[in-house]
């Protein structure tokens, strides 16, 4: 068993990061923390994409390009998300999502 870091290790890392992010997104009370957790999940996906691209289709840069796109889009998404959090805070004086239940049926 060589110590070469291969595709499997990268996918395991990606899965671990995604699971951490998912746990954070589902369990954290602060909206800021949820946003950060979502960011973690996005980056896990990025790692998986780049690893796939590097090991399976070395001649093409498809995964890298997708990762670059996702970074750009997630930056915009974070900006939007923070703006929403700010607006939410102004109205409700809190950023704790389990106290924001206006969608209750």
């Amino acid at each position: 068993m060589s110590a070469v870091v291969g595709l499997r290790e990268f996918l395991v890392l990606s899965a671990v990061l995604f699971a951490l992010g998912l746990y954070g997104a589902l369990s954290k009370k602060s909206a800021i923390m949820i946003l950060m957790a979502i960011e973690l999940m996005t980056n896990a996906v990025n790692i998986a994409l780049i690893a796939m691209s590097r090991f399976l289709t070395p001649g093409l840069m498809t995964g890298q390009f997708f990762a670059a796109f996702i970074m750009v889009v997630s930056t915009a998404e974070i900006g939007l998300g923070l703006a929403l959090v700010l607006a939410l805070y102004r109205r409700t004086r809190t950023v704790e999502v389990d106290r924001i239940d206006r969608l209750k049926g």
Partner: protein
Amino acid sequence: MTWLLAIPLLPALAFALLAPLPRVTRNALRWVPAVAMAGSLAGALAAFAMVLRSGGGDQPIYHTSFAIATIGGKALDVGIQLDAVAAIMLLVVTIVGMCVQVYSLGYMHRDGRVGWYFAVLSLFSAAMLGLVLASDFLLLYMCWEVMGLCSYLLIGFWHTQEAPRMASIKAFLTTRVGDVGFAIALAIMYASVGSFGFAAVLHGYSWTPALATAVSLLLLFGAMGKSAQVPLHVWLPDAMAGPTPASALIHAATMVAAGVYLVARAMPLFEISQVALTVTLVVGTGTALLGALLATVQHDIKKVLAYSTISQLGYMFIALGTGSAVAGLFHLMTHAFFKSLLFLGAGVIIHAVHTQDMREMGGLRKLLPWTTAAFTAGALALAGVFPFSGFWSKDEILVSLWSGGHYVVFALALFAAFLTAFYMTRLWFRVFAGPAQKPEVREAHVEMIVPMVLLAGISLVVGFASPFFATFLGEHGGWPDIMMAVGSSAVATSGIVAGWWVFGKKAVDTEALKARFPHLYGIFDNKFYFDRTYEFVFVNAYNRLSDALWTFDTKVIDGAVDGFGHAWSAVAGGSWTFDAKVIDGAVMGLASTVTWIGARVRRLQAGRVQTYQRLVMAAVILLVLWIALKGA
């Protein structure tokens, strides 16, 4: 000669044109019926000329018929024919109709519904012209009924007032009583002959005397309704509530004479049955006397003329009762001219003094010179003074009575003639003589004067046609017997003198007479109790019958209906209970079940985003597991 059809159709078209128009347009087009009438007049003159050239006689010179319906495989034909009688009647109707149309333009010009008046007048003329052209009893009956309708509409023309409305209903119903007789006669006719045509019914079928008597009497009954003969005369005096020119045309000259025309047409049938002739004679005599007697006590100028018309129509029926259709038709013609003239004159007088009560008139001789002259001519004609037309036609009737051996009727007819002269003199002195009570009276418009002068001229000269009239109709004619002429003139003169003595010279105090014989005056004042009797026998009986029926209705019919209603209501109550308990229970139960489930389900909707997200996650995991296991 199909153009004959245009004679009745032109006024009918004028009606069809005016009737659907809005009121303002119709009023503006009120001259249209007069133009149509002028066309009919021209047609009537042409028709008369053609018959004259062919020499007259009792055979039609033209006949056409067309089927209007096929019932049970048998065609129902109506037709028109032109013979001497029709030609003369056409002339009479169109001349009087034309005069009345022109006169009405002046008389009615201030009325708001003048257009409708002229439209109905036009429809009436069309019906009357159709009636005299008809070659069968069916078309005659149809026109007869249209005339009845027009009479009803014109009597009730001022329908916002009570009296005209009631009078129109009375006239319609009373004439309808007679028309039922006419209709039954038609049914018997068709059942036995199988045709309505004059030729087939009158000459082409051998009637048994009994059947001929029945049909004749029924026809006579119809004629009595239309021609206001006793006892069906009660509608005519009331009909004076209509516009005066309409009275002149319908209730003096033409429609009321239609009964005379009908009997004259059906004369061959009457001759088969001596009974019918005798009945006609009796009815005519009674009517002539009764009308004349009542005319002497009326104060309303139009009522005097109305009773006079009844009396003169009675005269015509006397003539028919002697079997002399010629004398009856001749009196019909002369009467049409002078009586419409008298009505038109009365219209001018009523317009001028704004009342119909003769006691408020007087001294109009100087104020209305033209009207006075024309009216006097009409009055002299009615009184039977030589050389006016009434003298000739009345003489012919007297001659036919004398030669027929009806001496009692002859005496009664002479007495009626005396009364006629008497009441016309009374009217004349009341209206025209004496001091003027209303000095601001103005003479009528020229379009009202001209027709009156024209009719006065005709009334003056038409009597001289007496011998030619009979020849034209295919009978033997001649100048009246000189003794008869002298005798009747003496009667007429004595009537005039008596009238002058009582009302001109005022030698008799009529009020004192009234006080002296209160019972006699009461009989006259109540018009021989005809109206009272009808009210008691028919109207009250009818009302009692109505009351009884009403009671039956409320008790039995309504009871049954109410009972059914109650039963149904009970059924409905049971049904309602079932509905409320079972159906509604089921629906409500379903609803509350759904509500209960909803209340459970809504707990899922916590409103927290993360809760939803966890559910989604769980679902995804389950899905992935399912796929993984299935794939394996």
